[in-house]
């Protein structure tokens, strides 16, 4: 390539670089931003998932604690004993399962489920003060469960509900979850009170 040709090329380069830059029609950034922004439901999932995981972990811990540390004839001193807490822990678990199973298998399903629902709700009401405040993760999980119970109640309130029994069953399950959540905190509060009073907790063997 000759020097003269190189000079010619360089001149062409300078002429091309002197051309103005161009810009696209329309707003390309808006299209990009819509694709880059995280979808709203993703944020919802990101909150719900940890709450669900926390709830599951708590249920597992509660089950282990109940299985290995609860006395066979435990009563909660200083509070209104309900049928839920007066039962032995293992018996309670069996009763919960039995109540649901029996309700599934007999004609009195609906009544049994409604009775169980009332029982759990009453216990939650009676122990509300002792069980609060809940830790952050538990509080989030409890909020999620309460929201789901609210949805079931809305569905139950609808006229001519065909799946009424299934809804009541779901309500009982949710209340049981909430009970387990509150129960662990309730027990911790009771243990702490007993220790401070200088006598062993009735919950520790």
């Amino acid at each position, binding site marked *: 390539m000759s020097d003269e040709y190189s000079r010619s090329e360089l001149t062409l380069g300078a002429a091309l670089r002197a*051309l103005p830059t161009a810009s696209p029609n329309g707003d390309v950034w808006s299209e990009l931003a819509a694709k880059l922004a995280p979808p709203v439901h993703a944020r919802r999932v990101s909150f719900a998932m940890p709450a669900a995981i926390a709830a599951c972990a708590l249920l597992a811990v509660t089950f282990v604690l109940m299985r290995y540390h609860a006395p066979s004839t435990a009563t909660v001193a200083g509070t209104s004993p309900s049928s839920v807490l007066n039962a032995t822990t293992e018996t309670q678990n069996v009763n919960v399962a039995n109540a649901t199973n029996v309700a599934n298998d007999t004609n009195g399903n609906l009544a049994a489920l409604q009775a169980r629902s009332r029982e759990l709700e009453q216990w939650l009401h009676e122990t509300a003060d002792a069980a609060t405040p809940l830790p952050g993760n538990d509080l989030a999980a409890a909020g999620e469960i309460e929201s789901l119970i609210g949805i079931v109640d809305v569905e139950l309130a609808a006229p001519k509900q065909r799946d009424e029994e299934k809804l009541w069953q779901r309500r009982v399950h949710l209340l049981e979850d909430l009970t387990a959540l509150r129960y662990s905190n309730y027990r911790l509060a009771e243990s702490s009170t007993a220790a401070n009073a200088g006598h062993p907790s009735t919950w520790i063997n």
Partner: protein
Amino acid sequence: MTSSFFDLEVPQSLIERARAGELRAFEQIYRRFERPMYTLALRMLGDPEAARDTLHDAMLKAFQRIGQYRGDAPFWAWLRQIALNEALMRLRNRRDVEADFDPDLIGDETSAPWTQADGATLDRALSNLPATTRSVIWLYHVEGYSHPEIAEMMGKTISFSKSQLARGTARLRALLDPTVESVSCLMNTAVLS
């Protein structure tokens, strides 16, 4: 040394914010590089719609892969490579038909009609070149790539890159210089291609 339109400073803090997924940081980077990237695509493809699509897709890929930017080259060079790959992919899909080249049209190597032509005329002449030829000219003269680099990017030989540059330069000269006899013939050939 050729200075690319892309050669723009990007603060490290802005890159880090974009890596963290901050939309505002993405926007700042986009605004900075919108015109250079669109211009590169337009010069190579010669079609505003295709250039717009190239800009969109290249930016989207850049933002989705910004975590892969290692920092061993300037950010603008990394971004330009993504844009270039997008444009080349579209160029390959077109399969441009090159017109036969007449070596005699190179003519007087010392004449440089582009020094006399205004921007609009040069722009028009450039747009009349086949896309591949125009791309080689642009990559070589404006973006500063060497013939081996252009050959590798296009999957062609170094000779191909050199011949495209020579053809393109000759055609531009002919298009811009009214004293060249075959201008009208060339214009027709270029438009058809």
